[in-house]
């Protein structure tokens, strides 16, 4: 039987704000795709842990929506730092020009954070890929 109540683990915020994209905005995603025409690799890198059939872990057990999200960055430099920190995440940076009307949502984390969780069907995000550069 599941517990009747749980406490938030340390470092887990009490709430998560999810906002629809209502105006054009730009985020960046680490990828193994080498060009914006590399559809197969882009789709593979635009998938959530849930879509990859990974079990929910840590914060995903508190906020299941994060299990369905992909991590993006608000600057190319931050995405590049991600690729350099762990090359297994990818060796290129995809610029995503997010457009309203595609169902794309992003979180609103603490002020100043360069990380954004993003929700959308991968094929919709694929339409937003404007450029791919080497990391």
């Amino acid at each position, binding site marked *: 039987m599941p517990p009747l109540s749980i406490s938030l683990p340390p*470092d887990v915020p009490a709430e998560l704000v999810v906002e629809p994209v209502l105006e054009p905005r730009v985020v960046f995603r680490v990828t193994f795709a080498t060009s914006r025409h590399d559809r197969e690799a882009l789709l593979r890198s635009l998938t*959530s*842990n849930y879509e990859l059939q*990974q079990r929910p872990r840590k914060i995903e057990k508190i906020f299941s929506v*994060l299990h369905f999200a992909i991590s993006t960055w608000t600057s190319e430099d*931050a995405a590049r730092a991600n690729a350099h*920190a*762990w090359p*297994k995440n990818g060796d290129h940076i995809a610029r995503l020009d997010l457009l309203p009307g595609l169902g794309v949502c992003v979180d609103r984390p603490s002020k100043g954070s*360069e990380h954004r969780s993003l929700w959308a069907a991968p094929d919709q995000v694929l339409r937003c890929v404007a450029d791919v550069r080497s990391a």
Partner: protein
Amino acid sequence: MTYGIFSSAGNLIAWCDSEDAALQALRELVDEEPEAADEIAAFPVTETGRPCGEAILASAAVRHATAA
């Protein structure tokens, strides 16, 4: 320093407020899912969440604990 824990797909799994907390979280993840030991890593991030150092694989966190 804050650490972010990510899957090999590049998706966030946790934020931790110290290296010790990150290492502990990595070990817990391996306990629950040994086959994912090389598919999960933590790396330090700046106050804006930007990665600023090399990743620590979950498998390395386990080896570090075993050797200590």
